């Protein structure tokens, strides 16, 4: 018996719908989320179903949206706000870093902020400039923010439910290039906790570590490698913060080789963090240096060049090739 197929946009929509229906304090707002249902239709139908008090459009101001969410959370609500695109969350950066992330700590837990900031993020959609940033490092580096990046539609549903249920703020990164891909999603499967990575593919020879939009790319690379006789495993982080060292390191210790795959520019990135932690925690197990396959340290390119920028199967396999196989079994 298979679960119904839905797109990631539909899975997120379902998570929002279920959360709003179950909990009176959940409110959804942002730019174009109500009448239009969001530019990606992620909030489609929610305004019609739940009305203006639960789902509403705001004036066009991201700092305003996040700042208002802080206040609403201070007054007992669970705001789920949408930033229309990754780069358009930057106007809200001060609110996110100086308030959303810190208020719980600043007040010794007296004020907690159950806010979810949903960000359609990353590239691969042929978008013009400012529409394809992978901005996770900015949030992951900021103490106080839980940062989640689902790679599957089922995870998008389950992790968003968990994010909304969290008493503390969560930045929820939605790989926009997956919004319209269909997968089976069984919403009755218990919500997996935030903070657990998952081994998407077992592999003996090396471990690919990825999250969000890079997971399917890593899986495709592993597929390809298999045809060439190399058995690669794939770990999907699911959440960047908290980071699941246990799952990641168990895999790398088994294979002795790791490649981190992420779309964001590599310098001082989440990929750097993964390479650093794996290097530190799996030191004696490493047969080769941990490689990173990331976006280049350049602005996100225009549509016609984006395939050069994005980590693809070829670049991943090239990196795998450098893992010092000469002294492998």
């Amino acid at each position, binding site marked *: 018996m298979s679960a119904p197929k839905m797109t990631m946009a539909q899975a997120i929509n379902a998570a929002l719908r279920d959360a709003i229906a179950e909990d009176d304090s959940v409110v959804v707002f942002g*730019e*174009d989320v109500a*009448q*239009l*249902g969001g*530019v990606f239709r992620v909030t489609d139908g929610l305004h019609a179903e739940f009305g203006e008090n639960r789902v509403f*459009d*705001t*004036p*066009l*101001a991201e*700092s*305003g949206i996040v700042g208002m969410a802080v206040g609403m959370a201070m007054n007992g609500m669970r705001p789920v706000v949408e930033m229309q695109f990754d*780069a*358009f969350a*930057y*106007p809200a950066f001060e609110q996110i870093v100086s308030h959303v992330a810190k208020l719980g700590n600043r007040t010794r837990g007296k004020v907690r902020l159950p806010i979810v900031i949903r960000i359609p993020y990353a590239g691969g959609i*042929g978008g*013009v*400039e*400012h*529409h394809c940033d992978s901005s996770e490092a900015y949030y992951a580096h900021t103490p106080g923010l839980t940062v989640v990046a689902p790679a599957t539609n089922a995870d998008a549903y389950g992790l968003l439910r968990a994010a909304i249920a969290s008493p503390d703020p969560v930045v929820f990164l939605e790989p926009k290039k997956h919004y319209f891909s269909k997968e089976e999603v069984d919403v009755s499967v218990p919500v997996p906790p935030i903070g657990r990575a998952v081994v998407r593919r077992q592999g003996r020879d090396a471990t690919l570590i990825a999250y969000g939009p890079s997971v399917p790319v890593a899986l495709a690379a592993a597929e390809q490698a298999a045809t060439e006789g190399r058995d690669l495993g794939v770990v999907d982080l699911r959440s960047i913060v908290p980071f699941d060292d246990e799952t990641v390191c168990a895999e790398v210790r088994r294979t002795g080789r790791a490649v981190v795959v992420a779309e964001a520019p590599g310098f001082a990135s989440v990929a750097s963090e993964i390479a650093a932690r794996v290097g530190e925690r799996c030191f004696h197990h490493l047969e080769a240096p941990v490689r990173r396959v990331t976006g*280049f*340290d*350049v*602005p996100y*390119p*225009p*549509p*016609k*060049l984006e395939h*050069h*920028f994005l980590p693809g199967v070829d670049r991943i396999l090239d990196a795998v090739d450098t893992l010092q196989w000469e002294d492998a079994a």
Partner: protein
Amino acid sequence: MSAGQLKAAITPARSLDETGRLVRGASVPDPEALVEGYRKLVFARRLNEQCGALVRQGRLAVYPSSRGQEACQVACASVLADGDWLFPTYRDTAAIAARGVDPVEVLTLLRGDWHCGYDPDEHKVAPQATPLATQLLHAVGVAHAARLKGEDTVVMALCGDGATSEGDFHEACNFAAVFRAPVVFFVQNNKYAISVPLARQSVAPSLAAKAIGYGMPGFRVDGNDLPALEQVLGEAVARARGGEGPTLVEADTYRIESHTNADDASRYRTDDEVTEWLPRDPLLRVRTYLRKAGALDDDLEQKITAAAEEMAAAVRAGVGADTPVDPGDLFAHVY
């Protein structure tokens, strides 16, 4: 702040009414100049149509049309001198073209070849801004630098009604007023920010009324009325050039098409609403006026249309041409 000033910020100035009649007390340029304006309107309209077609053919990734706003597009460019600067948004392709930049270069962005396809410095046209309202501050900077250098440059900074809600709009207006920077802030109030109607953006008596809070003059003008726009914007440019500082001008206009081709306006507005705006078409009233004034006959119209067709053909050819993209550009000019 007098009652008259307040009124000017709230009641739209008009020159030609919807039937092409001169509004009482208003003046319009002499017919020859207005014919030139009409020519530009026709070009702008044709460009909008051509780009729409190119999107449908898959030759452009996306196009935010300024159909219905052509008078704004033409006026904001025509009031500028050569050394002045224009700061446009994604919706202002026609204004950039009206300023003299080859539309094919402008469309580089929407074709996906590169981010900015023209040389901003050569044309004194900033790259089309996507992050809303951010460019207004750049406009203030260019203007302030010009003043420090003793140049009489004026900067025309464009944004939409939605963008006025952003913090950067506020900071830009305030900086300009405090530094008496020679900037004209030109808000094309086309009533929507994607799906969000003006009423959710502001409950002020007008967007131009925001000028009061910055201590600068604010004017509201019929945004489908080319002569009125040229007059109000022209006066603002003259004030700026004369060292009298910035002005906020709001054009009362309407976005006839969807936000972009990717948008479906029927989800948030009625056809009736759109239909109401059609008779207010910015081309129509100038055409009727010129026809009645005897300055535009079939022959001249035919010439104008032919020239616009030529431009459209060049755009088709240019956008259709197979321009190579260089992956090396990815790494160029980053640091």
